[in-house]
């Protein structure tokens, strides 16, 4: 770890904590600017269920006390921040009285699994195709086929999802229509369960890959065009190196660097997820959780999910910062910056 001075590490850690703290504060403030009273919404929901509610004032007060929103703002804030540090965001108002952390904990692994897997696949495929679009020695067919495949990039994920569902699930019946795993298997680390999860995850992942690989491919194409003109690529050719070796070690190896930063930023966005993809595949991930919470004005859940997204984005950027000197030796962290 000699490339990461201690001062730099401390500096970055402080930045990380501050970023998360500020972001947490902002997501706490925003709902409080809204005139909506979550207690009234809860009451409204009760009223809708029961037809009418007697002594509504008392119930409102009770609800507010339960939700903690009868206390002074500063107390609410401090409670929220100290809770956030240990991932305690209180109780969901829509799924009262389930703790928000339980909801997130149930949803997070599904999203992480699906999204990160599809992000890795799309990153790999997109960058490879982007590189092949530029490489002089790519087969002609590849150069024609890739731009044609880019058409998919302009399809909204919800449509590609529906299309894939229709073809592969409804017509061909190769994959299940919805859900994250079969209702006939018991969740656990068993072979049946894992294959069921993979089987169910394939179509949602594919629908994400199909619409997102173009982002990486186009970015990579631009970077490769720049790298292709670099003197070191010319000299590599003059050295009589094998074309494939030049492609991997001289061209892609250099062009990929900015893409890795973009990758870190995308991780955070992906947790928020392809909300609609999760929705149409009835996949119980973070996207669906957030979507439902917004519909139900479930502030604690919105806050909790936003907080987790920010935390993961900040963490992945932090990790890439630390990782960067190892993938690009020109970046060296000065101890005093």
């Amino acid at each position, binding site marked *: 770890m000699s490339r990461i001075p201690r001062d730099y590490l401390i500096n970055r850690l402080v930045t990380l904590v501050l970023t998360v703290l500020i972001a947490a504060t902002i997501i706490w403030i925003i709902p409080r600017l809204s005139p909506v009273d979550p207690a009234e919404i809860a009451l409204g929901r009760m009223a809708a269920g029961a037809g009418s509610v007697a002594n509504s004032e008392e119930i409102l007060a009770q609800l507010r006390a339960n939700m903690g929103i009868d206390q002074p703002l500063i107390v609410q804030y401090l409670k929220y921040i100290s809770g956030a540090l240990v991932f305690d965001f209180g109780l969901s108002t829509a799924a009262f009285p389930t703790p928000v952390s339980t909801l997130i904990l149930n949803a997070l692994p599904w999203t992480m699994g699906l999204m990160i897997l599809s992000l890795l696949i799309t990153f790999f495929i997109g960058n490879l195709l982007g590189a092949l679009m530029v490489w002089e020695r790519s087969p002609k067919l590849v150069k024609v086929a890739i731009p044609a495949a880019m058409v998919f990039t302009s399809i909204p994920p919800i449509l590609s999802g529906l299309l894939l569902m229709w073809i592969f699930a409804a017509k061909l019946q190769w994959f299940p229509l919805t859900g994250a795993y079969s209702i006939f298997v018991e969740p656990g680390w068993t072979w049946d369960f894992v294959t069921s999860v993979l089987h169910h995850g394939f179509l949602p992942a594919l629908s994400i890959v199909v619409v997102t690989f173009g982002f990486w491919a186009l970015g990579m194409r631009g970077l490769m065009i720049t790298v292709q003109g*670099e*003197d*070191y690529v*010319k*000299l*590599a*050719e*003059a*050295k*009589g*190196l*094998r*074309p494939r*070796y030049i492609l991997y*070690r*001289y061209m892609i*190896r*250099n062009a990929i*660097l900015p893409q890795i930063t973009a990758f870190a930023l995308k991780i955070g966005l992906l947790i928020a997820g392809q909300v609609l993809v999760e929705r149409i595949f009835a996949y119980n991930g973070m996207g669906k959780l957030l979507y439902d919470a917004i519909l139900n004005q479930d502030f604690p859940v919105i806050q909790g999910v936003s907080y987790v997204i920010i935390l993961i984005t900040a963490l992945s950027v932090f990790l890439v910062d630390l990782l960067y000197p190892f*993938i*690009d*030796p*020109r970046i060296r962290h*000065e101890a*005093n910056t």
Partner: protein
Amino acid sequence: MLDDVTKDKPVLTLEDLSIEFPTPAGVVQAVKALSLDIHKGRRVGFIGESGSGKTTTALAVMQMLAEPGRVSGGTIDLGGTNILELSEEEMRRARLSRVAYIPQGAMNSLNPVMRVEPQMWDGIIAHEGHLDRAELKRRSDAALASVGLPLHTADLYPHELSGGMKQRVCIAMGIILNPELIIADEPTSALDVVTQRQVMQTLKAIQTQIGSGLMLIGHDMGLMAQTVDELAVLKDGELVEHGTVRQILQAPAHPYTKDLISSVPLVGGESFLSPDARADAPKRTSSEPLLRFEDVRKDYGSVTALHPMSFTLQGDTPQIISIVGQSGSGKSTMGSIMLGFNPPSRGRVLFEGQDVAGMNAAQSLDFRKNVQAVFQDPYACFNPFYRVNHALKFPYKQFGLATSEAATQRAMEEACAAVGLDPELVLPRYPHQLSGGQRQRLIVARALMLSPKLLIADEPVSMVDASLRASILSNIYDLKDKYGISILYITHDLATAYHVSDYVMVLFKGHVVEAGPPKEVIGAPQHPYTRLLIDSIPWPELDRSWGDGRTDWDPANLEAEAARAEAIYRGTVPGFDLIEEAPHG
């Protein structure tokens, strides 16, 4: 005429070689029926301006012509192999093992994410398969040692090397498989004179040792005279003259060759400036000196780029002050401090009595108008999306100088004319449609339009063709007398500094080591470092020694010697006061 050397079979024979580039506007003949032999152990220089076809010829030998270029006629025979008939794979095998290429831009020629050693190994592996590690190590170490690099260089990344070291790594890579022919494409054009001499001597020594032919591409007649055996002069794709370097230097036959030889500015030689530009310039009216450095010092981390320096440039009568030194001497740091781009770590820079660091918005605008810059790279100084007239008009309006469209137009036309450009030709064009020389003149014109009081010119001609340097420098020189602009000329080219300047400061590691009028400092240097700089200039005279066989190339020795010597002040000129640095030690 070359019969004394034609005993061996040539390593390279070009016969009626023609190269063309089909473009939408028609076919461009880049090289026309060129015939030439390069023999074993001989060094042949290809000299000519950019666009004369010298690099194109070299790339054709490598079979690496850029699209859509193609060999349209003739043959290229590499030691008995007609390379035009080789398959792609056969040509790949011939590269490096039979013909090696040493590139021009050594700065960017190494893969930035790989250490030096694997970049040397991959060349061997591509031709000889996977040898064992010890053998690879033995060969890369031998190659590094042969170019005078310490063995730990192998473990460094390219960005950790200086320009001279990178160029030597490229040479080491080139000779690692003992090729029959080495093509060196302006291998030292990005290096300062001292490093240039070291690298060139290294290249000569190693080429003699392995006995290969050398094709040296360049535009510097002095460098050619000191390096090659034969010279091929190219102009517009044609070989206009070919012979031994002695024949050509002593009796050039073609007028273009004569031009090339006479256009080299020499220390003590004839001035290339027109002496008639002595019109009376408008006098400056300010009691404050134009520019003043008060104990200005610049540190980058723990490195001191500029040691405390104090001087006053009165600027009442315009002057040209030259700052000369190698890369890393602190001269460009001085320039950026003067421009206010780079605040000094200590001390103050005063422009007409105002601290550059503490200006308000109005003062800052005034400062920007009055202090203009001309930088090294004419290609990077224009926004490629704007036509030239927009690029010239914009600052003129920005500084509130434009009274009417017609006046702006007139100002642009005058400025273009002043630098010898046809306004009708250049103004409506985009920067990429102009040559490097035209662009550099436009940058001078743009500065001139603002009637600044001070011009900072940082290596303004180091990237343009030799034949254009003199005329661009005379454009800049004219600014002084015709327009009353004082100029700080930052350069590593001592010959031009000798001719244009009123006062010269030689910088070494952020210290002034010698200063005074150019006739003394450059004409008769006294400080060992200044002497080193002068000795490193390749002269276009065959019998003048360029330090062949000298052993004092080791930078450490030179530095120690230069650091021991005290700064030498060689007299003053009115209007410029350099405060002498206290003797150290």
